[in-house]
């Protein structure tokens, strides 16, 4: 006790918590103290066990063994409601807001104690909480009209709504531009100063250094490193970097590539542009899109007056805050959504009115961002998922009947070519890890003569090694003359890969810049800021 006098009190203490799923130990004997008034950064690759840890704290999963103490008392968090009662609020990576409801309505969803809705009280509470965050939020705006930064602030307010003492932020910065990240970090600091305990999950080391009071590193389900506040205060950025990188990658450092790549992937250094093979971009235009408009429907955004041209071997990046029409653009080009006006040319051919299959066979491919739900059928085996876009086609199907041998041969070929780690081709695809599911999608889309590939957030949520591999694959194919449309919310990724970067906002392309390397992220940020200023000043054409 005497040694802890100077330290902040522990609100939540996890002791030797273990959680296993069939085949995986997701959390292995993890002990973790969450202290009042401190930001505890949790670092680790995807698959390191961070998500499981959160879902245990949030009451969605029960640990197999170990215990959780809250204010020193052993407690069981049996449900999400119990977690809320105990004061644990979570902000997830995905949006939990209902897009057709207003901000206030969304927040009041959690108010179930009283029969009548207390709008006035809710308004006051919202005002107080936004002041605390340093945010300005219109209570009556529909959730779908929130910008991403604002949306996240609302999510945070929602997590705090029931009076949380512990706030968990799950990779909150992965989709934000540098400017938005700064304002988020400022908000987190305010909350901490108010005495909240914050768990900040990230895979970017520089953020952890910027904001963390304590740092813990998870690797393969184990807590491999804990840097308490006292030690962290004494460390500088580079010594922390060494400590953390060693913990994160351990002996794998060599196999993950050279040191520089690791640092970039771990977000310790800023990204630099990858060198492209000379002369890989040719003069032939593969995709030209002119004046394409597609109206919004069902809560998805529309796109307006889009003009794009991509040459063979060129990588065009689309930057922008998530949910500004990127998916609509990809779906329109893939043929999954009908457009209202405009033309899409693939090479010389007008494909505007062709369906998905026809475009597919002409070499247009789409790697979707919604891997789990749109990209694969989780209950079908890997082999059939690899051939999902060729169902019914020869030689795999003959007059409607499957030719198992052909299916097996082709899937084995793709599995080894793309190094998909699966027990066997008959394993259900849904049981693969995120990285292997992405490899499965890449194998499916990149086989059989691609000419233009649309990648929608291709590395989102993947572990670092797979991220590196996926980026390599994209570059390889571009070098071979495939045109690439790379949609990403990760500016580092675009700076690393793209030849040009266009910025999308509210369904319109608002600017474009050639990739000039290190300064590109700033230029993109400026384009976004200028657009915002122009939009409030006068209505845009």
């Amino acid at each position, binding site marked *: 006790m005497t040694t802890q006098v100077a330290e902040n009190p522990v609100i939540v203490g996890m002791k030797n918590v273990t959680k296993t799923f069939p085949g995986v130990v997701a959390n292995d004997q993890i002990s973790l103290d969450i202290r009042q008034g401190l930001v505890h950064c949790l670092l680790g690759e995807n698959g390191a066990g961070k998500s499981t840890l959160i*879902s245990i704290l949030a009451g969605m999963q029960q640990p197999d063994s170990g215990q959780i103490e809250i204010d020193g008392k052993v407690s069981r968090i049996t449900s999400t409601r119990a977690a809320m009662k105990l004061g644990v609020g979570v902000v997830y990576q995905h949006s939990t807001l209902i897009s057709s409801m207003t901000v206030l309505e969304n927040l009041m969803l959690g108010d179930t104690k009283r029969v009548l809705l207390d709008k006035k009280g809710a308004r006051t509470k919202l005002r107080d909480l936004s002041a605390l965050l340093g945010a300005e939020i219109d209570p009556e705006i529909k959730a779908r009209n929130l910008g991403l930064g604002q949306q996240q602030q609302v999510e945070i307010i929602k997590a705090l709504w029931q009076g949380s003492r512990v706030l968990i932020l799950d990779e909150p910065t992965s989709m934000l531009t540098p400017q938005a990240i700064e304002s988020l970090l400022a908000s987190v600091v305010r909350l901490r100063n108010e005495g909240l305990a914050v768990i900040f999950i990230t895979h970017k080391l520089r953020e952890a250094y910027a904001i963390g009071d304590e740092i813990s590193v998870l690797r393969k389900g184990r807590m491999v490193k804990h840097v308490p506040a006292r030690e962290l205060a004494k460390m500088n950025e580079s010594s922390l970097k060494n400590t953390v990188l060693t913990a994160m990658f351990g002996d794998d450092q060599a196999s993950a590539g050279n040191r520089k790549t690791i640092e970039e992937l771990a977000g310790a250094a800023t990204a630099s542009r990858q060198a492209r093979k000379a002369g890989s971009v040719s003069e032939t235009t593969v995709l030209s899109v002119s004046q394409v408009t597609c109206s919004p429907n069902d809560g998805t955004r529309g796109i307006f007056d889009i003009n794009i041209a991509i040459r063979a071997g060129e990588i065009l990046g689309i930057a922008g805050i998530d949910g500004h029409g990127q998916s609509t653009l990809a779906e329109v080009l893939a043929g999954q959504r009908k457009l209202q006006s405009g033309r899409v040319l693939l090479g010389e051919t007008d494909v505007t009115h062709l369906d998905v299959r026809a475009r597919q066979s002409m070499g247009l491919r789409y790697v979707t961002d919604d891997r789990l739900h749109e990209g694969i*059928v989780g209950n*079908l085996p890997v082999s059939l998922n690899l051939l999902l*876009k060729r169902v019914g086609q020869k030689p795999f199907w003959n007059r409607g009947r499957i030719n198992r041998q052909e299916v097996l041969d082709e899937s084995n070929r793709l599995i080894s070519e793309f190094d998909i780690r699966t027990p066997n081709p008959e394993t259900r695809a849904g049981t693969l890890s995120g990285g292997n599911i992405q490899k499965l999608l890449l194998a499916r889309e990149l086989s059989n003569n691609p000419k233009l590939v649309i990648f929608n957030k291709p590395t989102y949520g993947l572990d670092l090694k797979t991220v590196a591999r996926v980026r390599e694959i994209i570059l390889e194919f571009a070098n071979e003359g495939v045109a690439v449309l790379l949609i990403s919310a990760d500016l580092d990724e675009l700076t690393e890969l793209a030849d040009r970067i266009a910025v999308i906002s509210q369904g319109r392309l608002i600017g474009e810049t050639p990739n000039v390397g290190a300064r590109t992220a700033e230029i993109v940020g400026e384009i976004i800021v200028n657009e915002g200023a122009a939009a409030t000043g006068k209505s845009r054409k």
Partner: protein
Amino acid sequence: MSDKKQVVDSAMRTVSTDGIPAESLTAADTAGQRSKRSGKEIANLLIRTITPVVLAIIAGGLILLAMGKDPLFFYGNIINYGIMGRGWQQSLVMMTPLLLLAAGLIVVFRGKLWNLGYDAQYLLAAVLVIGFAPSLNAVLPWWLTLIVLTLLGVAVGAAWTIVPAILKARFETNEIITTLMMSFIGVGIANLLVRGPFQDPDVVVPQTESIPLDSMLPYIPGTRIHVGLIVAVVVVLILHWVLTRTSFGLRLDIFGANPKTAMHVGINTSRMIVTLFIISGGLIGLAAAMDMLGLWGYVRSNWNPEYGAAVIPFVFLARLNVLGSIPFVAFYAIVANGGQIAAQDSDLSTDFILVLVALILIFMSIIEYIGTRRDLGQSYLPPGLKTSVAQIFGRKKSS
């Protein structure tokens, strides 16, 4: 029963399992033909399937006891009348329309489309088949009449699904509502037809002319079971093969798993919706034709056997597997057939059979709920139950 489809099962899971490693989900397998399951999974599946039925029988027995009846007497009579003597033949005859109806529902349900217009599809097909029988019999040989009338039944059943199908395909209109509305309209029209153009002029009660016995479907030699049963079994087998072994079945599974995936991989979802509805309605129309031409021979106004409502729980217990639905349909046919007289012998309302069906549904929901929570590694009890109970009994909780 080596392969099972569990679209419903997995549908129930996907709701609550986002973000949880898929390994923790046992036995969810849309892909019938494809992966093999372990003995544990099969056992799990059997337990989940049979327990609700057993529990329903026990609970039904308790209700009977409470009513002062002897449950063993009642259940014994069900077996007596449903299987013994000629009972099994009657039960098999009763299975004919039920099997086809179950097949018709399974096809759409696997695509996660809900065709709830089965009553109208059945009755309209039945009335038109019976209504046109006399005039066709007059000009065609009996066998050709039967074939033409059967095709007519199929066509009518299918046609009655077209409006909801197109609305769903083009405008994503909720098919539950449209099929139900079309059902009200269709049942009404069927009644109007019985009282109007098809009414038998020789009788006062509003009913159609009866088909003469020699123009009905022939019996299977040596039994009093009409050949409609063979048609039903053959159709069910073919459908099972189509659903599990062909590229169409695979496309249907993809579409059922997620229409967005279907669109992504280039399946024409509008065409899929219309196709599924037409097959569904066609099979229900076929059920009507077989039932009319094999068993009833006439339709009275306001008559509605409500087969669909009876079959739905069993379709889900069979995990939307066509072959798997056969034993369940047989079970229901025996209970319904034997239960008619058994209920009278015990001085019960025949509606007690529906009570049994409802109990099966209730226990099925409970078992699925518990099973899903167990798969997720959570407590068997609903969240918050313990604390609520504790509060009721006044135990103070520290907050």
